């Protein structure tokens, strides 16, 4: 996560305000009664390492005696040359089934978003493998398409990128605009949008095609109460189509309400994997300590 999301400051805990998910939105206990479908996604000993170019080697700035002037001069050069390798995901394995919704919890920088991107096939694994059945799509809040194009053209672009035909995109155009709730702004360049509008449009585009595996990264934390309600509706829709949903969120409440299983990730490794209420409770307990 550290390298992929420059807007870390937005990753505050949304627990306080993300409470508008309607009650009874597929609570964990209910979903457990239905038997699990066949596996839809298998992650086998996944490792992700990536380079941050131009970051150089980390050096101890704060501890140890102050280095001499010459040493500092030499170090200064090294700081801006080369690359640092980040080992973001370290040996994660699990099996997800159809009809299952899985929440991923963990601290900032624990590797949640990187893991999500990797299982969506967007970041190639350094080691290990991911197997998936059918189509998968990732919804994120920070991925804009082309900001200087109008929302209208971005809808076409995004829809086509998802593998729809131009005809299918045109058919769903009104639904997308309505779902995003941006009205006449759809004919303005996306750079004129507020961040909430852009995120909603992006979400609406990505859900235009119902994927077999849907992955959501913090999407529920943006937008107003009404939008959140509609999003959880979309998640149910995917589950009804026997799809699998992954949700990364800092809102513990959203995870327990929308997911029946949760993974707790710390430093790129799975700490706990089980029913969402149990995992979230354990995670919340560790935060308080």
């Amino acid at each position: 996560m550290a390298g992929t999301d420059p807007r870390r400051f937005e990753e505050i805990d949304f627990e306080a305000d993300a409470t508008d998910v309607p009650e009874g939105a597929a609570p964990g206990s209910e979903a457990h009664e239905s038997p699990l479908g066949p596996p839809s996604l298998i992650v086998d000993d996944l490792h992700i390492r990536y380079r941050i170019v131009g970051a150089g080697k980390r050096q101890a700035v704060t501890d140890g005696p102050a280095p001499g002037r010459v040493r500092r001069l030499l170090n200064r050069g090294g700081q801006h040359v080369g690359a640092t390798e980040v080992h973001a995901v370290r040996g994660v394995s699990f099996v997800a089934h159809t009809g299952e919704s899985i929440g991923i919890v963990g601290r900032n920088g624990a590797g949640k978003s990187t893991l999500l991107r990797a299982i969506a096939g967007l970041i190639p694994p350094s080691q290990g493998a991911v197997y998936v059945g059918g189509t998968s799509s990732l919804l994120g809040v920070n991925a804009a398409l082309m900001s200087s194009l109008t929302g209208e053209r971005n809808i076409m672009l995004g829809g086509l990128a998802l593998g729809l035909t131009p005809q299918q995109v045109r058919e769903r155009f009104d639904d997308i605009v309505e779902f995003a709730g941006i009205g006449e702004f759809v004919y303005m360049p996306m750079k004129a949008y507020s961040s909430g509008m852009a995120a909603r449009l992006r979400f609406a585009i990505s859900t235009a095609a119902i994927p077999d595996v849907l992955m959501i990264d913090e999407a529920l934390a943006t937008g107003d109460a009404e939008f959140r309600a509609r999003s959880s509706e979309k998640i149910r829709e995917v589950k009804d189509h026997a799809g699998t949903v992954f949700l990364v969120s800092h809102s513990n409440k959203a995870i327990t309400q929308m997911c029946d299983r949760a993974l707790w990730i710390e430093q790129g490794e799975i700490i706990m994997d089980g029913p969402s209420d149990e995992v979230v409770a354990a995670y919340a307990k560790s935060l308080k300590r």
Partner: protein
Amino acid sequence: MRSRHPGSGAPVSGPPDDELDAAALAERYGLERIGARPALIPYVRDIWQRRHFLWTLASGRAYTRNTDNYLGQVWSILNPLLLAGTYYLVFGVLLTTRGGTQNYVAFLTTGIFIFSFISTAISSGASAITGNLSLVRALHFPRALLPLSIAVAELINLIPTIVVMLLIIALSGEPITWTWLLLVPAVAMITLFNAGCALITARIVATARDVRNLIPVGTRLLRYFSGVFYSIDYYATDSLASLVLAYQPVALYIDIVRSCVLVETPLQAHLWWLGAGWAVLFSVVGFIMFWRAEERYGRD
């Protein structure tokens, strides 16, 4: 939805799921390994299926180039005009490299416009992957669409430029002939070559991004070696040097375009065959080279 899991529903024989390793379990339920590089033929087929995406991406890119200015798309005509004016001032008036040419204005204009068509494709191709990482990390599509869309976007941008070019050429006293129509196959050939170049530079810069800094140096060298503002036949007296200079693809393409629109440059069939050969060579080599790293784009 579609039938996604061939194994689902059917009674499963053999050991229970828990005892299988990941690969065997994936095979039992018909799951595909992702992040693995697709075979060449399915990859080409996938690109063909996404051709509408390619077109939307290219036209979007072509359109956005000038949206930051008040004059907007007018700059797509003003820019080449100003460029031609600058070159005429330097090489036509101050340095006079007009040796061996009869209509220097037309000769220079063709050279500059066709060269910048090629060089922009090379330099924008270099950032096709590194400049679109957010797109690469957000959506799943054959990555070759990014450099290919740059070649198509340059083609779209060329259309107003070519109109200006033909106007200048006609005003400079060149007769309008049927051979002007040969511009269409010539430009098609160059676009294929551009696509190959964009694929190659995109791949190289995605793997070793420092090379990006060498691209401007490379295109500048190419500019001086391609007879953009001087006649290679007239100035390169050494036979080997003139051979290399005249038959390298960029100089060859400029020469071919000149033979379409200028009376002074004769049409030569063997140049066209050679030009087509370069285009096929670069696009095939570029495509395979790009495809071989398909699973690695977007890692950093």
